[in-house]
């Protein structure tokens, strides 16, 4: 299986994601240049973190018009797996792959620290190696990570089990003190209705080895691999 990692001008977590996939997970991976119109046979596309186009206008607003994004949208619409991490999550909302928007952190500061995430839905391609309610320690690093959507849309997300991760305290409780940015309902990551696109503000690629402080982020990558292996197994039968 092959991962494709999109590089926009200003992406800065593309190499971290590459290292996580290539050297820790041990799978095939390629960079996808933003001006390219070819996903190079990727089975899964990662929109990495960073500051695409300097975060000018709005985070992700300009990157969504990159040539590669047309291919990513078509790929997602045909069921392909897409993961947007941090700036990648912002790009995914701007381009309409995921509902809602990421607005300025409620406290206005850039926030860079470890957070605890509770797995809310363990039946997605991105969390199937986790158990529901499991707590993962994964860092955040963002200024615009405040997930916003209108009340009715939030209710719909919740009802459809589209919240993948929520910020919690050490006891696993959803409390304001555990919310690093003001996100509604402590939302840290969501999937689309179809379940093949994940957006998350925390950086799983920065938590793939214990020497980095946590290896919990590897579970997101392992989930994807398990999901793909399962799909291929079904295909062979």
């Amino acid at each position: 299986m092959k991962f494709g990692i999109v590089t926009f001008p200003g992406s800065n977590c593309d190499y971290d994601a590459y290292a996580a996939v290539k050297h820790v997970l041990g799978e095939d991976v390629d960079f996808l240049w933003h001006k390219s119109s070819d996903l190079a046979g990727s089975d899964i596309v990662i929109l990495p973190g960073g500051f695409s186009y300097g975060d000018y206008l709005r985070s992700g607003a300009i990157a969504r018009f990159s040539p590669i994004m047309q291919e990513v949208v078509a790929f997602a619409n045909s069921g392909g797996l897409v993961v947007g991490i941090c700036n990648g999550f912002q790009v995914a909302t701007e381009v309409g792959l995921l509902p809602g928007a990421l607005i300025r952190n409620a406290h206005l500061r850039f926030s860079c620290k470890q957070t605890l995430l509770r797995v809310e839905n363990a039946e997605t391609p991105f969390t199937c190696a986790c158990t529901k309610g499991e707590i993962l320690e994964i860092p955040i690093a963002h200024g615009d990570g405040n997930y916003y959507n209108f009340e009715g849309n939030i209710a719909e997300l919740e009802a459809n089990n589209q919240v993948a991760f929520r910020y919690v305290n050490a006891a696993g409780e959803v409390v304001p003190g555990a919310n690093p940015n003001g996100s509604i309902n402590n939302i840290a990551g969501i999937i689309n209705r179809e379940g093949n696109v994940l957006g998350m503000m925390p950086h799983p690629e920065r938590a793939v080895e214990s020497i980095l402080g946590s290896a919990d982020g590897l579970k997101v990558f392992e989930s994807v691999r398990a999901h793909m292996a399962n799909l291929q197994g079904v295909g062979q039968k």
Partner: protein
Amino acid sequence: MPNSKKALVFVKLKEGVLDPQGVTIQKALAQMGYDEFVGVRSGRFFELEVLGDAENIETRIDEVCSKLLANPVIEDYQVEPIK
């Protein structure tokens, strides 16, 4: 530029969407003693210079506002009459 016209575009967060910058500015004003300013909403402003005939311009401006300058999920925009 020959035949160019100017349009002003104002973009701001929709009513009901939290505007952390506006809230912070409002608090600063209150601290400065301007406590009659009980609400501040921040936004962005664009000055566009556009070529083309007048009828078409308005449609085109509308397009760039909804596609790029504003995120219709969270923002509203207003276009000032073209001069």
